[in-house]
């Protein structure tokens, strides 16, 4: 068995509040002097370990899912393997050419046309003009942008942009393909197409590292997973076992909300700390669309509120689908911890990834705290993929209505 990737004790340390991007020269000198004069161990800057002692192996031709909560180190690991940033210690070996698709439209220049961008991207991946030209038609056909090839990509929709970016990375036949979260963008049909393409890449014996919060996709695509937690590799093995571990990880102590995400005049008086998902009495990481869903919002009120409304909202592609409250307007909220429950019926949400917003306000706009994006909510596919191109959109609205033929009445011209 040949190894495609071998990582030994990879670690990456970032300085907090250290060398900030674009600091000015005198600031840097000042910071260095302060650091020198401060006793060791009492330095003003802290360090965080985004990765610590990560070791794992990936055999050639394996498709490995990389899962872990936000901040677990997934992106840092991919950046190290893609050689974008250097590890602080440890080492890794990658056999062959590695292409990474870490963000939508990496290396696309808005002023250039689609055609020019394909060549630019190919060159970034280290391919010659001829090699790119040989695959050009295939890329364009996959991306479905034939008509817009000579349009600058700044005029592309985000969907077209995404399709072209994925098509380029997926068709340049790297030995190792690293894909981060790209499936979170784009519509269901495109996501399915990407998955199909990654399957065929895998079948052709290439190695794929696939980072996703979309557990259904990880299940479909990967035979094994690498689970990261707090910068450490805590599991490397079969997909079901790994995902079970990841889901437990999410359920326990999961769902913590980032305080910095919230804004508003009440942000320091009403602190929202956790949001958990529960179905059939069990905490879940991904939502089964066939069961009712409870969202549990936990937080702390710094003082008594005579009346306070708590709400969550669901967004899809930046569009607010709805806002719902845990009860009628004007309820009091006592000082201390609270838990608020929101119920959504079964069969409301279609499969896909949603963004959850949460917050609270005094009725009549007497102060508020809100964040549009506190966490993401994934609704998984149910059973076989039963999409026939009819049921598109975020909400399930079954056909309700009827149809009749209307006989057009012959209208005779009005008499003067």
């Amino acid at each position, binding site marked *: 068995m040949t190894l495609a990737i071998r990582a030994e004790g990879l670690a990456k340390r970032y300085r907090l509040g250290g060398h900030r991007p674009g600091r000015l020269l005198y600031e840097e000198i000042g910071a260095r002097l302060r650091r020198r004069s401060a006793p060791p161990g009492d330095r003003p800057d802290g360090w965080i370990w985004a990765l610590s002692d990560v070791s794992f192996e990936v055999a050639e031709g394996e498709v490995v899912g990389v899962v872990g909560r936000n901040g677990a180190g997934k992106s840092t690991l991919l950046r190290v393997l893609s050689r974008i940033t250097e590890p602080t210690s440890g080492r890794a070996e990658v056999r062959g050419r590695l292409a990474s698709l*870490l963000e939508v439209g990496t290396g696309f*220049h808005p002023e250039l046309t689609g055609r020019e961008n394909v060549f630019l991207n190919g*060159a970034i991946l280290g391919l010659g003009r001829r090699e790119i030209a040989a695959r050009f038609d295939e890329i364009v056909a996959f991306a479905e942008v034939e008509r817009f090839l000579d349009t600058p990509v700044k005029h592309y929709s985000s969907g077209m942009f995404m399709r072209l970016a994925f098509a380029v990375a997926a068709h340049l036949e790297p030995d190792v393909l690293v894909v981060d979260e790209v499936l979170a963008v784009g519509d269901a049909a495109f996501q399915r197409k990407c998955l199909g393409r990654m399957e065929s890449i895998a079948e052709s014996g290439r190695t794929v590292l696939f980072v996703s919060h979309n557990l259904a996709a990880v299940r479909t695509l990967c035979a094994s997973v690498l689970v990261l937690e707090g910068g450490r590799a805590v599991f490397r093995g079969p997909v079901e076992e790994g995902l079970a571990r990841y889901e437990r990880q999410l359920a326990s102590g999961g769902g913590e909300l980032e305080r910095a995400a919230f804004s508003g005049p009440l942000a320091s008086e009403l602190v929202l700390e956790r949001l958990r998902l529960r179905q059939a009495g069990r905490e879940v990481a991904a939502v089964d669309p066939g069961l009712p869903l409870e969202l549990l919002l936990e937080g702390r009120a710094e003082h008594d509120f005579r009346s306070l409304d708590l709400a969550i909202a669901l967004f899809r592609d930046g569009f607010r689908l709805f806002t719902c409250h845990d009860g009628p307007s004007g309820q009091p909220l006592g000082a201390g911890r609270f838990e608020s429950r929101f119920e959504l019926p079964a069969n409301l949400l279609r499969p896909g990834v949603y963004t959850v917003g949460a917050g609270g306000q005094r009725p009549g706009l007497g102060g508020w705290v809100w964040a549009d994006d506190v966490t993401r909510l994934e609704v998984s596919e149910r059973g076989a993929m039963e999409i026939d191109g009819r049921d598109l959109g975020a909400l399930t609205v079954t056909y309700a209505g009827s149809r009749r033929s209307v006989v057009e009445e012959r209208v005779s011209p009005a008499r003067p």
Partner: protein
Amino acid sequence: MSAPAVVRIEPRRGIRLAELGELWSHRELIWVLATRDVRVRYRQTVLGVAWAVLRPILAAALMTLVFGRLAKLPSEGLPYSLFALLGVVPWTFFSGAVASASESLLGAQALVTRVYFPRLALPLAALGAPLVDLAVSLVLALGFALSSGLRPSATWTLVPVGLAILFLAAAGLGAGLAALNALFRDVRHLVPFALQLALYASPVVYPASLVPERYRAAYFLNPVAGALEAFRGGVAGSPPDPALLAISGASALALLIAGVALFLRVERRLADVV
């Protein structure tokens, strides 16, 4: 099928010369990045590539007025307007190349933080668009020289020598400044000012012969001095002292090595600081 090469990823110390080899394998990228800049440069402008000619003409006209007519600076027997144009054309390339190379890393943040490639490709590719402008304005400058009665002679062979010195110096300075600029944004504010100064420290609006004899060797440590004198003197048939030219050449080479070395040192921290 040959076995694919194994890429090792580990913390680096010092400078990695292997990167220069990698740069060669990414020559296609340099080409694509450079042509990208060229294409984008004059998009959505009315005059398009005519700007490459207009800018040196306007600058030379202004200099002729101020330094030729008013200050009456000497021009080594050439009409001052031709003298100024032959100085401005290579100077415009140099200052444009240094300015765009020094911004090249910051301007490519999206690339640097998301994909790997030898980063040196960025400042090198940034020289492409100024080179195209130079080629266009060179036709103008040499055409003007011919129409003023100068005829090609053996000394015209100094033209490519001068331009080569200019290119090496611009590449080295550009790479070094690009690296510093990524670390300290001060550089961005300093560069235009420094280039303004360098214009007067180089024989653009005045001939190098104006510099007192005993300072002249030191003066030619500025590689632009040798490059400009070789270029203009070559066209005009009055070549500079080969010893002085050698000083400028050596100094350009030193600048190149120092700039690239600095760049390679800073480079591995780039994705974390840009």
